[in-house]
């Protein structure tokens, strides 16, 4: 069995740099030790090295952008990488904080051998601007140690792999520091030297754990690898090195995330209709923005247009230091709705969806209403409104009422101020609602008001006269 390990030496750095548009020096700091953890090439050019104290680094580069490393952030970023790597290998495992292990042999036929898989991965990594060290190995542990030492080669021949493994120094073997030191004092410098020793001796003189590790590297001890499976949601987080103060500044990074969302949805063959954008502020609770489309959608351009409309409406309460896009509602893609070959079905449907989504994004979800009628005698209860649904999906089970009704209905009845000019028809008694406590007892008339309007006038049980609608 062949394993492939991908080690990301600068994972956080690459992640932050991918969404950054200013080319200044950047370091990831270790908050506990107050030292530089990872440094970007620009920072290295200024003389900043990993392990250096932060104060020294700042004096070397006064406008240095510093980002603190946090374990949960690394985990999230690693999962983001695992999600796209999952497309290339069926069985992958996360090796926090900075590695992903993939089982390569079962998929090598699909990719045209290990070379093909290697090439595809390298391309994908380059496209994502990620620094990565790849290595193959016959055991998970061997692949890992080779990758971490950046000694990996694209090969599946056992001899070459063994040779590489034997060439690793003791320090690169992943042994505890104490053991490595002892071995160095004995004069064992490479992993090959150590592996030639008899197993009993190692267990007796060193520690049983060291033997276990060695056996895992050699493949003589089982090393089960629980498979990782991608979650049924999309979640991507971004961290800004400089706080963003304008909503327009959020659009550029958002565009990139939406592109990845589109790719992800395309690959899953799924759509979504609701996106949750979370803006993180430094000292304030985060802002949550929900973007909805009128129908299932997967294209980044459409999401971006909605996000732009929505962000234009929204003023930032505080500068944004990071944001996250989360999609938890995934809808399987249906068949195209077109009924016939030449019909304009799908196009119109899509245009409808785009228009409604746009209007909702700018005006709010409650601004657009579709009316519906109900069978109730009470005029207020005979209608309702709901969210627009795609035309054609609503069932047309309507039974028009026999009674004539006005086209305009007042939100609440208004008292009659002037005596109507003429009485045209009536009364029509409406009495109902005794069953749900909203009793209505009225006599309705049609009358012409002095202004010339035809009104629907009623007199209620208490004797008051009200206008309830107009015949428009």
């Amino acid at each position, binding site marked *: 069995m062949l394993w492939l390990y991908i080690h990301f030496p600068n994972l956080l750095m690459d992640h932050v740099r991918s969404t950054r548009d200013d080319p200044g020096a950047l370091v990831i700091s270790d908050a506990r030790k107050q030292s530089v953890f990872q440094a970007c090439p620009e920072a290295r050019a200024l003389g900043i090295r990993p392990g250096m104290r932060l104060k020294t680094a700042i004096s070397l580069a006064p406008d240095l952008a510093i980002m603190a490393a946090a374990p949960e952030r690394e985990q999230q970023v690693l999962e983001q990488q695992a999600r796209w790597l999952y497309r290339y290998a069926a069985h992958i495992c996360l090796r926090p904080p900075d590695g992903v292990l993939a089982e390569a042999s079962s998929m090598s036929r699909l990719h045209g051998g290990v070379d093909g898989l290697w090439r595809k991965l390298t391309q994908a990594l380059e496209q994502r601007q990620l620094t990565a060290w790849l290595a193959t190995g016959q055991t998970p542990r061997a692949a890992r140690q080779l990758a971490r030492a950046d000694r990996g080669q694209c090969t599946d021949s056992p001899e070459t792999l063994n040779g590489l493994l034997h060439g690793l120094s003791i320090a690169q073997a992943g042994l505890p520091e104490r053991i490595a030191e002892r071995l160095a004092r004995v004069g064992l410098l490479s992993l090959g030297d150590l592996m030639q020793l008899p197993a009993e001796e190692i267990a007796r003189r060193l520690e049983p754990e060291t033997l276990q590790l060695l056996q895992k590297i050699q493949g003589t001890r089982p090393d089960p690898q629980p498979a990782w499976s991608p979650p049924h949601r999309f979640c991507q987080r971004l961290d800004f090195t400089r706080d963003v103060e304008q909503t327009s500044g959020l659009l550029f990074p958002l565009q990139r995330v939406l592109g990845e969302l589109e790719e992800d949805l395309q690959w899953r063959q799924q759509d979504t209709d609701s996106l949750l954008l979370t803006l993180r502020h430094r000292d304030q609770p985060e802002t949550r923005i929900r973007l909805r489309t009128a129908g299932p959608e997967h294209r980044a351009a459409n999401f971006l247009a909605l996000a732009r409309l929505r962000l234009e409406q929204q003023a930032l309460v505080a500068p944004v230091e990071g944001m996250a896009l989360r999609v938890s509602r995934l809808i399987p893609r249906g068949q195209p709705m077109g009924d016939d070959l030449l019909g304009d079905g799908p*196009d119109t449907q899509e245009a409808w969806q785009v228009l409604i989504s746009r209007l909702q994004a700018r005006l709010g979800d409650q601004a657009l209403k579709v009316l*519906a009628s109900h069978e109730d005698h009470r005029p207020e209860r005979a209608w309702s409104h709901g969210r627009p649904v795609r035309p054609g999906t609503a069932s047309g089970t309507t039974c028009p009422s026999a009674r004539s009704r006005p086209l305009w209905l007042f939100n609440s009845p208004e008292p009659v101020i002037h005596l109507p000019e003429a009485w045209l028809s009536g009364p029509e008694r409406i009495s109902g609602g005794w069953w749900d406590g909203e009793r209505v007892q009225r006599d309705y008339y049609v009358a012409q008001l002095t202004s010339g309007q*035809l009104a629907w006038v009623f007199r209620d049980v208490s004797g008051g006269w009200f206008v309830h609608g107009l015949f428009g």
Partner: protein
Amino acid sequence: MKELLDTLISDARVWQGSQQAQTTLPAEPTGFSALDLQLAGVGWPRGALTECLLPAPGIGELQLVLPLMRRQLEAGKTVFWINPPYTPYAPALEREGLNLAQIVVVHTQDQADALWSLENCLRSPVTGLVMAWPTRLKSREMRRLQLAAEAGDSLCILFRPTGAADNSSPAALRLQLEPGQNHALDIRILKRRGGWAAEHCTLALPDRAPVRPDTATSVVRGPWPERNR
């Protein structure tokens, strides 16, 4: 003299008013033959603005646009109502044979949003008809809407108060609506394409409200106090 005229005419050196090419503006018939006649067979102009100026809602203005709305809905188009003054009453619309699922009522917070929605609706190919009740419109905004209507080739009817009649407007058709005798609707054409203004017609609108043939006196009114209340 007659021969001279004949030669002039046969040589086509004289332009004759009667030969004026019939304007073939894209339009939708109004559904009322009396009004269609007045509009010189043009009807509601497509890809342009129409203004209906009325003193108050409830004088029959919706009856006037019902045939047009019905036709658009039957063609599978969507009809938008932007900021209507009252609630369009669903049972009544259904009774008129309109498919409620294709009618979208839009309420906006302010005038800027209303104009933005109007423009977006006009430019979309799904829109059959947009009806709007704007509060106040500047002529610059009107022109913007006119361009949007041209771009989307859609129908747009703006309902505005009568006072707006004094202002100039880029609308292709301007109708002034007044309540007429016997619940009819009086229409005065203030402006139209390819014809003179100030034409007049009256639509009876018999289906507007249930009116008894022997009106006033026979209606039982219940106890109504002597004085106005």
